[in-house]
Structures are given as structure tokens and as C-alpha cells.
């Protein structure tokens, strides 16, 4: 059995600073960590591996600059077997569509696994698009909002957390699951794990290795255009109604009733 976990390096939120004029993250200043939700995906993979009767290999796949090897080592310190980094100047500026396309190409190259796991979204972009988009590119069934996942004969059983309750689904064959933090509590790396991860090789793959043309990846191939970044203004208004004596209180109540009627709430 083989599981691929997609991980993203994100700025450590504690150390993050914003450029006040452009409204964007100052990425250089922050140290990078594994996207927190991806840690839950890694933990799911490790738990599946520990429960599996057959031999199971976990590969972590990431896309980013060469420094992203750090987060892959972090994953390997937790018990992940291999790390693969897609790193090429040609990938720079990829949007979620393009990233999913490129990651899908890498998965085809590595061989389709039994399960692909990813965190539901990343703390920097907050789109939650890359995982499902990748499932589409690979023509895999996607299980979203997963709060628990386990192996069953021939496939997977997952519990999805929805707004109005839980839904349990069973699925045959390979699938892609986007997990929530409820799915598993991430373990801490051990000293032994840290040491082992330092000695391990990380495969670095370029656009050429993937057989992806320069025109199909990176900023140029990304349909998303960031037109403008701005701080949303707070539109909430507050009206204070004094009610220090009975007369004032009566007036205040009238005003509240009037407001509620205006909004069509009563």
C-alpha cells in the first residue's frame, strides 16, 4: 500500500508580518513550517500505516523553493518514509489550478497511490482548492471535510463533518481525502526521528523531470489574476440606546422594534 500526503510550507503564523502598504505577507521574514492542517493529514497516514496488515509506504509531496526540504524533513521526523519536492523556477507563481496540475503530474510520475491525503486548506492562501482540483486532474474520487478515515477491504471508510452532522462514506479503490483537524491529533517528532530524517535523501523534481512544459505551469499558465488586495472595511455599525430611566427604556424598546421591522426580522 502506498499513501501520498501533500504538504505545503507556510509562514509560521506567530512570526508572520504583513506589508502594511501592499497588504501581502512578508514571506522572507517568517520561518516556514508545515501547514498545520497538513500535520493532521500526516497523522492520518501514520495511523493507517500502523493499523495496516500489509506493508505501507508514506510519501510526502510538496512544491516550493529548495528551502521547503525543511518541512519534508519535519514530516520524515514524524515517521514519513520519503520526501519529494517539486522545485523549479518554472513553477513560480502557480495558482491553485496550476499547482494542482503540477502535483497531479508528479503523482502520475510517482505512480498512483492507494490514497492521497491533504489538509483541508492552508493557513496562508485559505482557498482549500488545491486538493479537490488535484483529484479532478487525476480523475480520483474526492472525499472532503474528513474527520476520520480508515482502511477497509478494497478501499476506505471516511467520516465527513458537515454543517448539519456527520456523513460516513465508503469508497472503493484509490481516493483523495482532504482532512480536518478533528481527523487525528498530530504526534510530536522524537529525537530518533529527527536524526533519521537528517540522513534521508529528498528527491527534487523539476518541470523537465515531470514532463511538464514551461507553458503549462507557473505564473503564465495560471488563470488566476490577483487584481487587487485590500483590507476589508468593517461595515458593522453600532447604535447605543440609553436606557437609564423608564422613559428612555421605552423609547429604546420602540427603536429596537422599529429596527427589527425595518430589517424584516419581525
Amino acid at each position: 500500500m502506498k499513501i501520498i500526503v501533500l504538504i505545503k510550507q507556510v509562514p509560521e503564523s506567530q512570526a508572520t508580518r504583513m506589508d502594511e502598504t501592499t497588504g501581502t505577507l512578508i514571506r522572507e521574514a517568517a520561518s516556514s513550517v508545515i501547514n498545520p492542517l497538513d500535520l493532521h493529514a500526516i497523522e492520518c497516514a501514520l495511523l493507517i500505516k500502523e493499523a495496516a496488515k500489509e506493508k505501507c509506504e508514506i510519501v510526502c509531496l510538496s512544491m516550493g523553493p529548495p528551502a521547503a526540504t525543511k518541512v519534508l524533513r519535519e514530516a520524515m521526523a514524524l515517521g514519513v518514509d520519503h520526501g519529494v519536492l517539486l522545485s523549479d523556477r518554472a513553477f513560480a507563481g502557480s495558482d491553485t489550478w496550476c499547482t494542482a496540475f503540477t502535483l497531479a503530474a508528479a503523482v502520475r510520475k510517482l505512480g498512483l497511490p492507494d490514497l492521497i491525503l491533504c489538509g483541508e486548506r492552508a493557513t496562508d492562501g485559505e482557498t482549500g482548492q488545491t486538493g479537490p482540483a488535484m483529484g479532478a486532474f487525476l480523475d480520483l474520487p474526492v472525499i472532503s471535510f474528513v474527520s476520520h478515515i480508515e482502511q477497509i477491504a478494497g478501499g476506505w471508510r471516511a467520516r465527513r463533518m458537515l454543517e448539519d452532522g456527520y456523513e460516513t462514506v465508503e469508497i472503493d479503490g484509490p481516493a483523495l481525502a482532504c482532512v480536518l483537524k478533528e481527523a487525528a491529533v498530530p504526534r510530536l517528532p522524537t529525537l530518533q526521528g529527527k536524526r533519521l530524517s537528517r540522513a534521508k535523501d529528498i528527491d527534487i523534481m523539476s518541470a523537465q523531470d515531470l514532463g511538464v512544459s514551461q507553458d503549462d505551469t507557473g505564473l503564465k499558465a495560471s488563470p488566476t489574476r490577483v487584481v487587487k488586495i485590500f483590507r476589508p472595511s468593517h461595515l458593522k455599525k453600532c447604535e447605543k440606546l440609553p436606557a437609564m430611566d423608564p422613559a428612555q427604556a421605552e423609547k429604546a424598546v420602540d427603536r429596537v422594534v422599529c429596527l427589527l421591522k425595518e430589517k424584516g426580522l419581525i
Partner: protein
Amino acid sequence: MNSATHSYQPISTNVVKELSDLLGASNIIFNDPERLEPFSRDEAADCETRNPELVARPGNAEELAQLVRVANRERIPVTARGAGSGLSGGAVPLFGGIVLDFGRMNRILEIDRANLTITVEPGVITSEINEALRPYGLFYAGYPMSLETCTIGGNVAENAGGGKAVKYGVTGRYVLGIDMVSPTGELVSLGGKLVKDVSGLNLLQLMVGSEGILGVFTKIILKLLPLPKASVDMLCLFKTIDEAVAAVPKIMTEGGIIPTAVEFMDRLSFATSCEYLNESLPCADAGAMLLITVDGADEKQVEHDYDVIGEQCLAAGATNVYVADTHVNSERIWRIRRAVAEAFKVFSPHQSLEDIVVPIAAIPAASAAVNEISAKYGVKIPCYGHAGDGNLHATPVMPPEWTFEHWHGVLPEILMDMYKAIAKIGGHISGEHGIGHKRKKYLAAVADPGFMLMMRNIKTALDPNGIMNPGKIFD
């Protein structure tokens, strides 16, 4: 002369008016038991409490000096209070009078990068100092466990220790200057932005840890250090307390590395804290834990250091060593340690949080002595604390089947036994929480009589009317 022999006057309406004119009516609480009650206690459990007659919120040094002059003239006790997070009953106004609230004197006045100092008012929350310093790549090394709530004024008055004292020392090491109001109401300036200074007696350090009995602070100058670029925490699990405790002196002396922190938790402590925090870290087989921090100028150095210390722990019998090198993971393991005291209060409110300190080589002997006392009285005494400093929070907990009266009858015997045993191996009764009124009778019993006399003489010389925080440290 002692606080019991001073006679204090109740606060008259004339004095209330005078203080109200001085500070503004909104900065005074008087005649309002409900609002005065929160100022009647600190975090020391099961300690005597008393409402102050008046709470005053001075806005600056001059107002504070005038207030103290009024109090001294009228023989009204004055008790300074930071955030009330103290653990010795130090901020409890035992004789009523005025409690000073520093909520208005809470500004960071200056960050001096050329001299590596920060100047603050006493009401600044300790953790705010490092938040303000982070953009400058500097830090203040004080790290009391209550840093998110306690104030720097309280830290200096108690000479707070905390989690990083192994490498960085305690609060006093970083106090370069204090502006204060003396018990007779004079404004006094001690020290300054000086790395060395022997111009006269070292009254600056006399004030550090003086528990509010020698005056109140209005401004504090602290020394800063370059912020370490890398820091890693390790949580080391041991099967037994003895193994964990025995590892500490080895870590401190044999590896050639000074860790930033070496914290100890026995099973009862970490299990209680984990339950309180809903933390599911796998530690079912562990009997004790060490939380060890190393920091330094670069990641490679820190990696080397934690490898060496982690290896020492494994050699000393650790069953597992977790490594936290991200902020999230570091917070996850430090939270376990920081929440122990809070968790105990929730699960067993009747307890006595102690603060014994011994030479680091005597930690195994201290642990053995505590175990012996625990067995003698049939009382559980969970232990946690700053093992790297030889500072252990041994905490006798009331057995659930005992009555409260029985507990209060036996507890003083337990504590006296413990303090005497600790004194025998070269230890003292409090490493960082202070004496306050919680430990004053024990201090008198185990401390050098000459030392007690000298302290009393200093107090009498500086505070002839005994108005400053009476009833603390000694009678």
C-alpha cells in the same frame, strides 16, 4: 519593633477626600466591599485574606509619592499589588489600609537600542515586554510561568525566577535601575543604564525581592539581550522519578552545555495538567518528565546541543525524547508545564504549593526527603518545577478523606519537617515565590537569627512607621 506593635489608623473620610482630590475620584475604590474583595488575596491557596479599606490607582510617580506621604503621616498601611498572581500571600493587605493598583502605570517608556535597555512602568504585563522587543531582535530573559498575566513590578518585587533561570538567571540579574517611592514618601532613583556600578551600597539589589516592604517602584530599567535565533524544546519521558531527577545534575555538569531550561514534572503533575488541557500526548508509561530547552545563535548549534542533551537523557534511562522545534509544538509542551499549578487548583483546591530550593547536586536528596515526609504523613506531595535550578514545587495535597480542620492541623508539621530536611542539605524554603505571610513563621524557624535581625534593622531604618506591606517576610 515589628508590624504587630505598630498601631495603624483606619482611613478617615478626610483622608479619602485628600486622596480623591489627589488621584481623581474614579481612581479610588472605597466603601465598596464587592469591588474591594478582588484585592483581598493573591494566588496562594488557603491563605488568610482581608479586604483593603481603599484601592488607589496612581497615574504617576509624583501622585504615588504624595499618596505615600499621606499614608505615612496618617499611619495607614500601603500594600503594592501587581496582577495578584503571587504565591506567598505577599499582596494581601493583612492590616487593611491602601492597596496600590498599577493598572494606570503600565507604559513601556523607552526601548534604548544603543544601551540594550528597556524602561518600563511597574504595571506592564511581563509578556508585553518581549512582544514589544521582538521587532528589534532583542529580548528580556525573565520568564515566570505566569508571564501572560503577571506584571514586571511584581516580578522585581518578588525577584521572580521561572523557566529560563538555568541559563539566564532570575529577574534581579536584569534590573539595572529602579525609580521608587520610599516608605516616607521620597522619590529615590537607584542604579541606571550602567553595566557596572559600585558607587555606594547596592540598594538597587536590596529592593529587588524586597516584597514591597521597603518601598514601591515607579519605573524600572531592564537589561536586554540579543534574541536567540533558534530554540528547541525537548520533552523527555522517564519511567521513574528517581531516574529523571538523577539525570538533572548529569545534564547540568557532564555535557558541557548550559540548557536554557530544565523543568521537572512527576506523573501526578503532568497527568493532572494534561487532563486539564485535554492533551493526549502518549505518556501512559511515564513516571516523570523533564522539559529541556536549548537556545542559541544558529540552528546548527542548537541541533548539536539538543542531540547531546537528548542522548544524555536516553543514556540516563529516558524512554522517549520528543523534540519541539516549531512554535506550535513548543507551546504544546510548555503549556503542560505552565498549567500544572492551575490544573491542581481545579482538581484539588486544598493544597500548599511550596517552592523549596537546594544546590543542584542535592536534587536527588531533596526528592528522597520529600518522599519520606509524604510516606510519614500519608499525604501525596506531587513535585514539579525548575529542576535545573534545584527549585522544586513540592505540593502537599489534602487527602480527600481528611477534614479541612485536620488538614490545617497537620500541614504546618509537614511543612516544618520539609523545610528542616531541606535546610539540612543546604537548601532554603523559597526559591522564587517569596516569603510573604505564607512562609514567614517557617523562615523565622529555619533561617540564621543574625540574618533575621539584620533584615528587621533595615526595615526599621527605612520604614520607621512600618506602613509598607506590614506583616510580610517577618513579624
